[in-house]
């Protein structure tokens, strides 16, 4: 029997309390790798730092294995998050969990960060590190069968498909890794991707050794079908144009991410994909407002890149705060 104890749900008295009435030097919105590293760097510079987070650890926590973070040959996503959080906790950074930000308003003295609860927290500078969320296929039947076969978290829902036939949509590392994991539980796994693999060769090689996995590249998913539960998908072979139906009990969608930026629409400049535009120093179009990680328009969404961007944003913010004080 395994236990995955996650200490921040425990003793409240030992956590650094988050004082909502304090005027912060730096508020970090988001508690994934970018947000946590920004908090670490900001705190070490001596700033009054606070973190507002919705999902502690961010998307990393849904990752089965991380094998490309320097210094760790292998970590589960959750264990890596634990290392991040312990490191930040050792510096007594207050973290407001389960909180969602509704808007960030620039004022004369800095920023008003408004929570969905109606509360307002003040800060001189703000770093947006809200990350991204799984992208949907956008095909007929996808939302209808959400939770009825269509899933977005392989480690969560995989066990429910024991001995069944599943499809994984996508061709990047997350899709290939989901397929590898699901192959241990499911009867068969079919990986369907509309173009060629984007995943690292090392994981593709591993996938190819599995006997119950079938790969269909250059194949587009057109529809999810079913009655009470999904029963299969309709696909189109992009080379021949032929349409066919694949029978399956589950569809795991792993086709990339969309930035969590909606709450800032209109208050800061986005690119065409709704990612926050930043320069090399993580500055946005609004002075004093910085952004880092998957929510920004930087290329390559990787854990280590997000963490690095978080550090950079905090250092730029520190310079800004020192000028303002």
């Amino acid at each position, binding site marked *: *029997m*395994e*236990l*995955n*104890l*996650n*200490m921040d*749900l*425990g*003793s*409240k*008295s*030992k956590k650094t309390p988050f004082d909502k009435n304090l005027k912060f030097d730096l508020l970090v919105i988001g508690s994934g790798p970018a947000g946590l590293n920004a908090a670490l760097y900001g705190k070490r510079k001596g700033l009054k730092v606070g973190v507002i987070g919705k*999902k502690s650890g961010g998307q990393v*926590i*849904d990752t089965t294995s991380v094998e490309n973070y320097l210094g760790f040959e292998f970590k589960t996503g*959750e264990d890596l998050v634990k290392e991040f959080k312990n490191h930040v906790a050792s510096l007594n950074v207050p973290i407001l969990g*389960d909180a*969602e930000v509704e808007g960030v308003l620039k004022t004369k003295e800095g920023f008003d960060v408004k929570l*969905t*609860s109606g509360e307002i927290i003040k800060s001189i500078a703000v770093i947006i590190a809200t990350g991204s969320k799984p992208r949907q296929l956008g095909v007929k039947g996808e939302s209808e069968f*959400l*939770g*009825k*076969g*269509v*899933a*977005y*978290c392989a*480690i*969560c*829902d*995989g*066990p*429910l*498909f*024991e001995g069944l036939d599943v499809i994984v949509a996508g061709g990047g590392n997350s899709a290939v890794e989901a397929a590898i994991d699901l192959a241990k539980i499911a009867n068969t796994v079919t990986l369907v991707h509309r173009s060629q693999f984007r995943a690292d060769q090392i994981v593709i090689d591993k996938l190819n050794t599995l006997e119950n996995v079938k790969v269909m590249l250059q194949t587009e998913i057109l529809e999810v079908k079913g009655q*009470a*539960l999904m029963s299969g998908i309709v696909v189109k072979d992009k080379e021949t144009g032929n349409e066919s139906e694949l029978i399956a*009990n*589950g569809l795991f969608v792993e086709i990339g991410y969309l930035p969590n930026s909606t709450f800032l629409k209109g208050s800061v400049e986005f690119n065409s994909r709704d990612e926050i535009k930043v320069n090399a120093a993580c500055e946005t179009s609004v002075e004093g407002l910085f952004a880092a990680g998957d929510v920004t328009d930087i290329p390559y969404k990787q854990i280590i890149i997000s963490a690095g961007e978080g550090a950079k944003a905090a250092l730029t913010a520190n310079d800004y705060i020192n000028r303002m004080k």
Partner: protein
Amino acid sequence: MSLLNEQIQGQLKEIFADMKKEITLAVFTKKEGCETCADTIAFMQEIEALSDKIHLEEIDFDTNAERAAAYNVQMVPSIVMLNDQKEYLGVKFNGIPAGHEINSFIPAIVEVSGAGESLPENFMEKINALEKPVNIKVFVTLSCPHCAGAVQKAHKLALESPMIDAEMVEAQTFFELSDKFNVSSVPKIVINDQYEFVGNQPLEVFLEEIAKTQ
């Protein structure tokens, strides 16, 4: 063999130091036909050993129908948490709360002991207005990192209202029940066996769905 290693034991002892009053883990089991009952009891014995305030009581489901009914226990293993007055506050776990569910189970112990924080005023108004009984089932898998968050919310609501009964259901152990409610993504929350949603949604969403039962 010990399930909890020394490091986890130490961490749990530290958390349990925050407990206010005593609690009882009433564990319903069956002598036969229950694959996970023995493991659940062994696990609970180790938890019990970590604090003087935690007591364990094993109850045979087949010969204690009345008590099972009093706590709305319908499957085994089922862990019912009772406060120092041996009252049931609506906090129950069906199936072994291992894996990630340790993160909903441990806080539940601390909260049932009276050490919880209360919910904001705007939530309490809605909770206090409930007139009809509400049952919340939260289906989980033990490998789901955010399921424990949904279980915690359901139990928090139960603790705040005598009208609410909240239970974790481990989907693989109780696969027939999971099938009945078409559980293929977790956490799946089913309210009064009728209203449902998927995901560790904010408390507002729980309350919206609960309002439909009234």
